[in-house]
């Protein structure tokens, strides 16, 4: 590290909106520098004479600062280190802070000595579409190539650590959103704010003023007879008195979506440096709903496409002016302004006044405007009808060759001469910043005289107005008038004020002569002329793409990578398509523009994510019994967004041991499970039965009060999508249960049909999932346990299988449903959720003497598989009819209609040989088939291939169980599978080839392995 270079040789003694009493030290590429409060990283580096900041993407050519704003394509740096590091940040928008660290990216080993620069020597070998042409063969190597190309190109480094910063999303609303805080935006906010409307004024910079900041102190910025800076101050003071106006600096409106929904990124603490923001979020992502929008987003200057126009020190003229006036930095001692319009002369005049030697090369034959004459009067040498035909200097520009243009601007003529300079300022005209307007589906119009795309509509599809430079209005007096009018009319449309705009403030205006568009500057010889700096796209690339048949602007964009960098071609796109139009012999509007997509500038994923990370990424739903599960060592499984106990291992047990124990204990004694997560829907109304008849396949009319029935729900295609037990609580009152994961879907399904197709049905559905906590006890000792705790008669006559009774359990109101998913005598005990934990703990305490065993979802799965009960979504996959899973009995043949019925006459649904649910018993009872394993016919493998080629289906459920035994009395594996024509393969032996190359043989059986008669269930 070298000694601090505190000379700032390019800093002016006075002027600018920086605070010279507050020096800030920072490092760039390991070297220490000093800048001032109010600097950007770019302005501070330029003040210190740093011109080389990076390398271009393809040719690794040395590159410097092009702009002074968010349009910067070249000066992208890796900001900070470690967890705080951020790649691809633009030095031109990074506010300087004490201790800032930044480094060049896209160079190796260093920006001064970059090996990739050899690419530049072989530039002709890297034409447009180079990657597509070269690396696509053989196709399978593309992934390999891509990795190498990306390393060589290098787009910065992502942090490897977790992001230590906080972010948040915030919703907000307003009557008028003004995007952009330049003269038009300030004027609009002022007139809108005065009506009492709720106004948001957002600007990406740290202070309001926009383009006025760039003319600060120049004498060309008078408004109402006072300097623009004072007008800004006065305007902000008035806005501050309006309680419904919010001024939001450092806030970029990044996206404009339908119904005037916009997003904005606020950089809250970035300007303080990492770790200095206290407890504040680093960035805030705003989601804004605005009744009306005023777009006042300004304009972006475009470069001139001349030979060797990419050397460090070749900058946008407006940027040079910004550095002089706003930052008190004169970027060069000898400045050559290359312009095709009058605005370049602002730069020439300000640079001359700041002490530089200034030349102007103007492509126009004979400009005589007021600014031209003013510049000449100050001693600026103006070369008319003159263009740059080449530049000198390797890591910084040292001079230019210039020649005269011929009469029609197609070639240069005469003899060239040389101008020594350390800065070339390009003034190629301005492109209105129409990005947000276009995002909102506004259409553009090509203004041939002004040579720019401007918004076609005065009021766009989404209620917005463009005002000022983004509307193609470039003169300050007109900009202010348009801003005031847009603000007052937006307020009126939002319901505020009378729409009468006050007189606009007067402002200095300099009559400008027309621009002379010269999209590609002629020269002699083959020299690179860049229109797109970040991705190294030249005019020759665009012309080559045209010759190779790329007609669409979208194709040319991708083929040449024009506008595909991190800057999204803010400086390059229009120039690129103008060159394209010329190459195709078409008019510019006929070529059209590429699509403007959000975000306007890059935004961190952290900001978009906001608070939604870690515990807040997704809700974890737990039941009232959950604290007991946690305290007793449950291992949890995610089921939808629920945390459900998976199994309850005792000390030293693995999952297998725990599950085998739980399975045995439930069959032998009593097991208990938290079933609170089941979806529950309360259905009331005289048409409740009609509803059930339509959404279930079986009959419900005759179900008695206090009785339960199992049902499956089908979609319109006749495929199972949910199942559950529904109980009749009264004549017109039912309690429906759904699968845990299907609760919301079923509720939505019922409401959709009731609201759209059956509005005549008198029935109300109310979700009661959380109202009821459910403990299910199963097993031969379940009844005796429960009988100790309830006033309900549990005798099989009083409460038979599939019956329901109400009373108290453990002293609290309860419903007991005799429903069994295990095949044992089982009681689903429902109590209000507040009593869930009490119920569970009481059952555990009283069950201790019966060796009660808590079990989780895995044991539940094993026990139901022993009985062949399906789990929707595991044993079915959206292509299964009830018949496919062996439940023909549940489909009523008598009902006139039910959802899905029609599909059972479709040829595909009734054809033979569909995949059907069967049981599988492996020949080796110790082998547990992997779920998802494919099943093949037990023929020999295809000769010569050694593989099974005909898949019959797959294993859907597979477990080891202690309750189904092999010949030796040991527990064995069981499985369920969907197998093509499975019902006709009973007893067949099929092959299950596994990933490790082995093949397991298994016999097809009925999918029921335990108590096939169901005697235990009914007891």
């Amino acid at each position, binding site marked *: 590290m070298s000694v601090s270079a505190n000379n700032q040789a390019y800093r002016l003694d006075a002027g600018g909106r920086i605070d010279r009493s507050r020096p800030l030290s920072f490092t760039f590429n390991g070297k220490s520098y000093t800048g001032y409060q109010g600097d950007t990283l770019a302005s501070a580096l330029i003040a210190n004479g740093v011109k080389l900041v990076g390398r271009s993407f393809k040719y690794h050519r040395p590159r410097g600062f092009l702009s002074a704003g968010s349009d910067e394509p070249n000066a992208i740096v890796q900001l900070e280190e470690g967890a705080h590091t951020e790649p691809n940040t633009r030095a031109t928008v990074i506010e300087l802070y004490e201790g800032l660290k930044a480094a060049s990216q896209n160079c190796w080993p260093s920006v001064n000595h970059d090996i990739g620069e050899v690419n530049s020597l072989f530039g002709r070998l890297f034409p447009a579409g180079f990657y597509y042409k070269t690396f696509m063969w053989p196709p399978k190597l593309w992934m390999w190539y891509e990795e190498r190309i990306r390393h060589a190109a290098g787009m910065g480094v992502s942090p490897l650590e977790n992001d230590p910063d906080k972010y948040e*999303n*915030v*919703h*907000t609303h307003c009557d008028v959103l003004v995007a952009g805080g330049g003269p038009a935006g300030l004027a609009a906010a002022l007139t809108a704010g005065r009506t009492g409307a709720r106004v948001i004024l957002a600007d990406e910079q740290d202070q309001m003023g926009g383009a006025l900041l760039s003319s600060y102190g120049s004498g060309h910025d008078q408004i109402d007879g006072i300097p623009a800076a004072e007008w800004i101050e006065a305007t902000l003071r008035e806005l501050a008195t309006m309680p419904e106006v919010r001024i939001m600096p450092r806030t970029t409106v990044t996206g404009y979506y339908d119904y005037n929904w916009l997003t904005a990124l606020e950089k809250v603490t970035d300007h303080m440096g990492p770790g200095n923001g206290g407890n504040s*979020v680093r960035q805030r992502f705003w989601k804004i709903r605005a009744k009306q929008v005023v777009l006042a987003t300004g304009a972006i200057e475009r470069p001139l496409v001349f030979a060797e126009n990419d050397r460090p020190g070749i900058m946008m003229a407006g940027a040079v002016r910004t550095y002089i006036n706003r930052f008190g930095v004169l970027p060069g001692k000898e400045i050559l302004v290359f312009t095709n319009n009058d605005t370049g002369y602002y730069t020439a005049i300000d640079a001359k006044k700041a002490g530089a030697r200034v030349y102007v090369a103007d492509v126009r034959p004979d400009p005589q405007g007021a600014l031209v004459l003013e510049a000449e009067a100050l001693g600026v040498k103006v070369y008319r009808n003159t263009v740059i035909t080449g530049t000198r200097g390797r890591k910084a520009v040292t001079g230019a060759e210039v020649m005269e243009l011929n009469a029609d601007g197609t070639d240069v003529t005469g003899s060239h001469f040389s101008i020594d300079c350390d800065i070339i300022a390009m003034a190629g005209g301005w492109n209105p910043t129409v990005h947000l307007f276009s995002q909102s589906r506004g259409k553009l119009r090509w203004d041939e005289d002004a040579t720019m795309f401007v918004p076609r509509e005065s009021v766009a599809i989404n209620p917005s107005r463009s005002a000022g430079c983004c509307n193609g209005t470039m003169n300050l007096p007109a900009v202010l008038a348009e801003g005031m009018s847009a603000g007052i009319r937006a307020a009126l449309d939002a319901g505020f004020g009378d729409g009468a705009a006050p007189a606009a403030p007067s402002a200095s205006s300099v009559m400008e002569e027309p621009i002379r568009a010269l999209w590609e500057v002629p020269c002699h010889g083959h020299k690179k002329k860049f229109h797109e700096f970040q991705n190294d796209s030249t005019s020759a690339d665009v012309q080559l793409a045209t010759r190779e048949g790329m007609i669409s602007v979208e194709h040319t964009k991708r083929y040449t990578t024009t506008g595909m960098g991190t800057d999204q071609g803010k400086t390059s796109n229009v120039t690129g398509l103008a060159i394209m139009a010329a190459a195709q012999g078409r008019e510019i509007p006929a070529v059209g523009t590429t699509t403007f997509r959000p975000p306007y500038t890059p935004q961190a994923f952290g900001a978009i994510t906001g608070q939604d990370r870690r515990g807040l990424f997704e809700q974890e*739903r737990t039941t009232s019994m959950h604290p007991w599960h946690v305290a007793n060592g449950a291992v949890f499984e995610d089921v939808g967004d629920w945390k459900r106990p998976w199994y309850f291992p005792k000390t030293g047990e693995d999952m297998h041991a725990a599950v085998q124990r739980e399975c045995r204990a439930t069959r032998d004694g009593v097991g208990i499970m938290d079933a609170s997560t089941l979806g529950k829907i309360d259905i009331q109304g005289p048409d409740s039965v009609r509803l059930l008849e339509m959404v279930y396949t079986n009959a419900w009319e005759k179900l008695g009060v206090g009785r339960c029935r199992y049902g499956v729900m089908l979609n319109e295609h006749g495929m199972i999508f949910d199942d559950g037990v529904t109980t009749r609580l009264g004549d017109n009152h039912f309690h429906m249960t759904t699968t845990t994961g299907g609760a919301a879907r079923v509720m939505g399904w019922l409401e959709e049909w009731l609201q759209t197709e059956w509005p005549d049905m008198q029935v109300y559905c109310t979700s009661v999932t959380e109202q009821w906590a459910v403990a299910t006890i199963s097993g031969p000792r379940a009844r005796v346990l429960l009988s100790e705790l309830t006033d309900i008669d549990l005798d099989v006559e009083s409460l038979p299988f599939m019956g329901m009774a109400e009373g108290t359990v453990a*002293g609290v109101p309860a419903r007991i449903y005799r429903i069994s998913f295990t095949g044992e005598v089982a009681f689903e005990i429902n109590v209000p959720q507040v009593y869930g934990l009490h119920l569970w703990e009481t059952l555990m305490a009283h069950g201790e003497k019966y060796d009660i065993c808590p079990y989780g979802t895995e044991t539940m799965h094993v026990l139901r598989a022993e009985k062949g009960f399906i789990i929707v979504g595991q044993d079915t996959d959206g292509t299964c009819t009830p018949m496919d899973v062996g439940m023909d009995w549940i489909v009523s043949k008598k009902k006139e209609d039910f959802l899905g019925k029609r599909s059972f006459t479709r040829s595909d649904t009734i054809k033979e040989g569909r995949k059907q649910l069967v049981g599988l018993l492996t020949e080796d009872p110790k082998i547990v088939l992997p779920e998802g394993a494919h099943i093949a016919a037990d023929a020999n493998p295809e000769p010569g291939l050694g593989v099974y080629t005909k898949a019959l289906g797959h294993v859907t459920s597979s477990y080891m169980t202690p309750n189904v035994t092999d010949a030796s009395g040991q527990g064995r594996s069981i499985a369920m599978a969907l197998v093509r024509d499975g019902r006709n393969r009973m007893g067949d032996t099929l092959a299950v080839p596994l990933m490790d190359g082995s093949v397991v043989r298994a016999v097809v059986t009925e999918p029921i392995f335990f108590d096939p008669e169901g005697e235990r269930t009914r007891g």
Partner: protein
Amino acid sequence: MVDTVFKVIKASPLKSMASPAGGVSLREKPFVGKINLRGNIEDGDFTGPVERVLGGVLPSRPNTVVGYGAFTIYWLGPDEWLVHTPEDGQGDLVDRLRAALGDVHSAVTDVSDYFVVIEMRGPDCRDVLARGCPLDLHPRNFGPGSCAQSHFSHATILLHQINDTDFDIQIRWTYAQYLWSYLAEAVENVAA
């Protein structure tokens, strides 16, 4: 038959959650009785009995809340209301409503434990709610006595403005901890 006397303790999902430090305090208001009521407000056979039981007319203006003695009634939809009762009053109210309504098409459903009530108190409530709820809660748009069903990030909520600054949020039991944690962070972010 059972003759044991059980020591019954009610559970609430937010008992262990601490209120954040900042411009909003959070507190669970536990064990409020809640009933979901459905019916046709244009049918006098529905509104008559309901209003006799509740002691006043059902709110018909969208997103409004009225109170009659022990009952607070939230408009949820054109044919749907939520009625709050004091703790353990819900069973009695369900019985009385059902008895009064008889065969009139309606639905009376106990949802006391379906929702949990979180009381948000303090000057920053609107700013905190903006960090997850997309509704416009500006005083010109939403005020005391207003209620609305919306969402806060991934959770469905019922919002009720109590006075110029304070709100009650009702949230499904199983989302309550998630919402509380989200609100707590929002409170800290607003305070920072």
